[in-house]
């Protein structure tokens, strides 16, 4: 793995390996001393062209827990507001010796361009690009689902296990959601079954080609007893005017597609509720649902740090390009 640009790039074995590594990283975060020396001397640049709280803080925490140096860059207050291009920004970062660039950009494909244009030699991690991909979010969702739903709900070791047989409903603004796109691909890779639930106006053209079934009715979808419900944020900033014509009114959206106490009660006992955050309380999810014991939304944030530690470790720790030493060769597992 050289870069992490899309959830679709991960093979089943790679995806499970990331989750297993994340589990070991999570175990280190329960210790008194949470910091590990693993990436000492490496530099990670957080290149954020779009607003973000949890993803940026999560990557920053992950990099710092692994002892990497972190440089935070946000477009606001930088030379980008003076008109600097992505290329020149990337060349600047390269000159400063960035070993990894974590990029969030409003344009789909910006991380791919950064990784393949030769502007930077570091590893590129996609932290969300436009309406395209958000692979670390999908990985942390998969990790959260595995912890709760695989192996007798956390009582047995889940190392090496995928999500085979699970049924996940992804509900809401699929059209604008990179989280949904990444999750559909990754959950499929890991063997889970996905149902997308949204009004027709919030489903993208060509959704029938995705490896998922589509439903327009949330109550029908919940009646099929999914193991997990993933609520998506209604991305009003990507809709032109109030509602943007995607749905008649917020109240009507809530009636049709909001998760409230009544719908929560129809779920199977073991089912969990996920939300990538930030939540619009009262729109796609009611306070009852968001604060219920089934909601694992706060845990998703904690798992995000472990998953991002795992991704940074797997991308940065080993380096096949340097000369291999033979010392301790007897210890290298075959």
């Amino acid at each position, binding site marked *: 793995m050289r870069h992490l640009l899309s959830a679709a790039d991960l093979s089943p074995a790679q995806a499970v*390996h990331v989750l*297993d*590594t994340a589990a*070991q*990283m999570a*175990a*280190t975060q329960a*210790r*008194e*001393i949470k*910091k*590990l*020396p*693993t990436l000492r001397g490496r530099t990670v640049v957080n290149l954020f062209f779009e607003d973000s709280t949890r993803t940026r803080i999560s990557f920053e925490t992950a990099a710092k827990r*692994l002892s990497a140096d972190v440089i935070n860059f946000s477009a606001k207050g930088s030379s980008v507001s003076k008109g600097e291009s992505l290329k020149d920004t990337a060349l600047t970062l390269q000159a400063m010796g960035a070993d990894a660039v974590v990029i969030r950009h409003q344009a789909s494909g910006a991380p791919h361009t950064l990784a393949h244009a030769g502007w930077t030699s570091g590893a590129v991690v996609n932290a969300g690009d436009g309406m395209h991909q958000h692979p670390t979010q999908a990985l942390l969702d998969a990790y959260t689902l595995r912890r709760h739903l695989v192996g007798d709900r956390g009582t047995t070791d889940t*190392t090496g296990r995928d999500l085979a047989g699970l049924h996940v409903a992804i509900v809401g603004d699929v059209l604008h959601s990179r989280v949904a796109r990444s999750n559909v691909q990754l959950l499929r890779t890991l063997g889970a079954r996905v149902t997308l639930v949204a009004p027709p106006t919030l489903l993208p053209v060509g959704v029938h080609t995705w490896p998922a079934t589509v439903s327009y009715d949330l109550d029908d979808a919940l009646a099929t007893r999914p193991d997990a419900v993933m609520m998506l944020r209604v991305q009003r900033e990507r809709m032109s005017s109030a509602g943007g014509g995607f749905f008649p009114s917020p109240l009507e959206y809530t009636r049709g597609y909001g998760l409230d106490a009544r719908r929560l009660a129809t779920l199977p006992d073991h089912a969990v509720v996920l939300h990538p955050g930030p939540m619009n309380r009262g729109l796609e999810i009611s306070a009852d649902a968001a604060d219920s014991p089934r909601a694992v939304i706060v845990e998703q944030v904690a798992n995000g740090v472990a998953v991002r530690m795992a991704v940074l*470790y*797997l991308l940065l*720790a*080993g*380096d*096949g390009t*340097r*000369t*291999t*030493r*033979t*010392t*301790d*060769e*007897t*210890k*290298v*597992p075959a």
Partner: protein
Amino acid sequence: MSTGTPAPASGGAPAGGTGTTVLGADDVGRALTRIAHEVVERNKGVADVVLLGIPTRGLPLARRLAQRLAQVEGVAERDLVGSLDVTMHRDDLAHHPTRTIGETYVPGDGVDGKVVVLVDDVLYSGRTIRAALDAISDLGRPRAVQLAVLVDRGHRELPIRADYVGKNLPTATAERVRVLLAETDGEDRVVIEGGAR
């Protein structure tokens, strides 16, 4: 202290595969039994002893030592043994393909005030043990740390010495020492491969 006998070893019968077998299954068992008794003798019992095996092959060795200690001292085996992954503390991460991280598990209520006995299969450069010492300091502050290895093959690159040695095995750097264990490889055997022996 170490009472490991110097090589050349018993049972130099050619192995099924390549290389020379320097320790057979019985030799491995006897070495572990002796180390177990040395641990008990040196620490005057096992009251505060925690065995931490370094994955991959240090872990089954630590479990076997714990079995023997449990028999000798009559304590519960699972309170004695844990595992310590040192991958994230290694100084050679950048020189190898990415390593898989193993599990770290400490029995009971941690290592604070305990005597930690690190257990590994082969002691060579000493770098794994240096990493392990760093890893332990992240877990807590043990009263003492001791080191038990099945094979000490020499060529230290750091000032590190084992307290308990199954066998001292002078080797050339071109040679390769492989420890095979029933838990991971289906049989107990120590083999030297390569080099002009």
